[in-house]
């Protein structure tokens, strides 16, 4: 099979993984090296596909042959999609060839399970080893780790990779059992726990002051598919909060279950729930950067996020008694709960109000969505009056033009 055809099959097979992050690893350049590449600081998105997703890494599978039969997966054993397998050398050459032309930040390599977990993991690690040791490649490497692979292989993966990930795949262990019978939710979490302790160890100085062995300086992440099972948003966010807390993940990615070629009849296809996925990311942001708890974000009785307004606005509408907020006096935690105010705007308000009072015109200049913010705030020269009590406030806010959407798939 021609290389181009393999690339088409094995990129197509990899695109359901949302992660393309290339940020947050250690800073390196090639100035003292023989090879190519650098990393550190902000990730770089080298292109964007018309699905709005960033293309930062060469994201491919080593092979899409797979002995598992996960019904949501394009590569399951019972699917009749065309199959291909790269050699280690082919992946190495493709990565270097793309990197030299400045198309990518590095490689995100995953694989279908062939023979057994250890054999598969060994092949994946070998690609990373050749890139690092034989070509002195200093760009970004993200490896998908295979649960149940041996601890020695995991240690080697962490030595070469910037980031490791294991997908929990579905929000609950019960869903995983029914849709991915060969996968073991407990084993996945065990592996994440092992990765966490290895990552922690690599950050501590040993007693003798010796530098510990490198292990995935870019941390670990995971992904869950949304909409393939019946789990509600409350349970999903609960799972996320636990994953962030227990395994200190850098990111939990949500992937709306999306039509795939040659789907299983067990899971009927429909257009992916993109708005729901977007609301989950917004909720995830509230968890990580806005001081919200998982159990207060979902306000509806059906356990689902409101699709009409963002989760912060939904929360504010349900807690109108806590508004309006005085932008010149309220503590930071409360400013972060004002609809339409992001982390940056809040920082600006806090720094400015130390010098002089924040006024109406200042908000205008800050370019926040006034329609969203104004009903919820008080300023020396502005009061929302009874707008907060208006029964049609939600409809009014729904029409608000959202401020420039935070690029969720940007490499942050």
């Amino acid at each position: 099979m021609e290389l181009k055809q393999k690339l088409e099959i094995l990129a197509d097979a990899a695109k359901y993984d949302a992660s393309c992050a290339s940020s947050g690893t250690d800073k390196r350049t090639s100035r003292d090296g023989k090879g190519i590449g650098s990393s550190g600081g902000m990730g770089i998105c080298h292109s964007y596909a018309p699905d709005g997703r960033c293309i930062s890494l060469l994201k491919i599978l080593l092979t899409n042959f797979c002995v598992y039969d996960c019904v949501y997966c394009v590569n399951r054993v019972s699917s009749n999609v065309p199959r291909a397998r790269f050699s280690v050398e082919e992946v190495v050459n493709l990565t270097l060839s793309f990197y030299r032309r400045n198309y990518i930040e590095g490689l995100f390599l995953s694989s279908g399970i062939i023979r057994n977990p250890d054999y598969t993991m060994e092949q994946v690690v070998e690609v990373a080893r050749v890139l690092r040791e034989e070509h002195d490649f200093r760009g970004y490497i993200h490896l998908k780790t295979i649960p149940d692979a041996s601890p020695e292989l995991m240690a080697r993966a962490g030595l070469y990779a910037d980031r490791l990930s294991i997908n929990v795949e579905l929000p609950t262990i019960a869903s995983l059992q029914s849709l991915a019978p060969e996968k073991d939710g407990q084993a996945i979490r065990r592996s994440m726990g092992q990765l966490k302790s290895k990552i922690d160890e690599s950050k501590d100085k040993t007693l003798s002051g010796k530098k510990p062995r490198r292990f995935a300086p870019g941390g670990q992440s995971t992904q869950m598919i949304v909409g393939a099972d019946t789990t509600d948003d409350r349970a999903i966010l609960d799972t996320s909060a636990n994953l962030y807390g227990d395994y200190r993940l850098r990111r939990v990615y949500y992937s709306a279950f999306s039509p795939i070629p040659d789907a299983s009849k067990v899971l009927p296809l429909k257009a992916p729930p993109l708005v729901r996925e977007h609301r989950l990311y917004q909720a995830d942001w509230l968890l990580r950067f806005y001081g919200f708890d998982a159990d207060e974000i979902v306000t509806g009785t059906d356990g689902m996020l409101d699709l009409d307004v963002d989760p912060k606005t939904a929360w504010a509408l349900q807690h109108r008694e806590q508004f309006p907020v005085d932008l010149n006096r309220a503590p930071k935690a409360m400013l972060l709960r004002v609809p339409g105010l992001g982390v940056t705007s809040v920082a600006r308000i806090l720094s400015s109000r130390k010098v002089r009072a924040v006024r109406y015109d200042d908000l205008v200049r800050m370019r926040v969505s006034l329609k969203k913010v104004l009903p919820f705030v008080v300023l020396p020269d502005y009061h929302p009056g009874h707008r907060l009590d208006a029964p049609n406030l939600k409809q009014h806010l729904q029409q608000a033009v959202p401020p420039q959407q935070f690029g969720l798939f940007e490499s942050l």
Partner: protein
Amino acid sequence: MHIVRLATETDFEGWRTAARQLLSQRVPPEQVEWRVGEESLSLFDSEPMLAQSASGQARDPVQAVTEFKVPREFVELCRKAILHSDPARFALLYRLLWRLKELPKLLHIAFDPDVARLHSLVKAVRRDLHKMKAFVRFREIEMENGESEFIAWFEPSHHIVEASAPFFTGRFTNMRWSILTPERCMHWDGKTLTFSPGASKADAPREDSGEELWRAYYRSIFNPARLKVSAMQSQMPKKYWRNLPEAPLIAELIASATQRMDTMIAAEPTQPRRKIVKYVAKKADGMPSEQNMD
């Protein structure tokens, strides 16, 4: 009116020297005009003003400057802002310096129109630098000695070519490359970096042997069931498309997306041909794992 001539568009040191002297002479911002000209040898057209303080007595400008220290943050912001293409940037920076003397906490007031403008210039320069690192596309050519050279054509919006150099030399240290732009070009031979005047797109190679694979990748990594054109365009505005080898695919991918998704949804499930042997999980010792006992 004081006319200051700066050596180049990115002459930060020239701006700083002039700004210090103007400040020491208490020349208000509205009495200064900033120009960029190559022919200028002296900084000031009206030389005698330099030696005179506002009170008419000669004083040492350096001494005057030591009395007034600006926050380090301000200097860093100025270094970035000066790379912006807005001709009013030099005046803005001097006005900020002037006001900082009266109000040392000025930079804290993020809403102040001058401070906000400074931040928006810096943001635009940072974004332009980031997009240059992202969207430069090298094309490989073979030199007479058989070695490879990589050449890119890029059109930045601001004066950022020099500022981008550390990124490219640190990443592509062991490659020979050139980045050509309309205003300024830079060349790296593996050891030294040199700059030359602007070039045109025709000076760069028109194609590259690696681009077909890259386009194949771009086509395949796109998910037609998730069409979000505006999200793509906000991050990759159309002005960049003309220099991106993958961009000609965009129209076709958008046009066929909905139909591709509908076809997948409408397709009848097939019978597995089962060419691959289904997994029977085994532990290392050969025992079947618990969940596969049935």
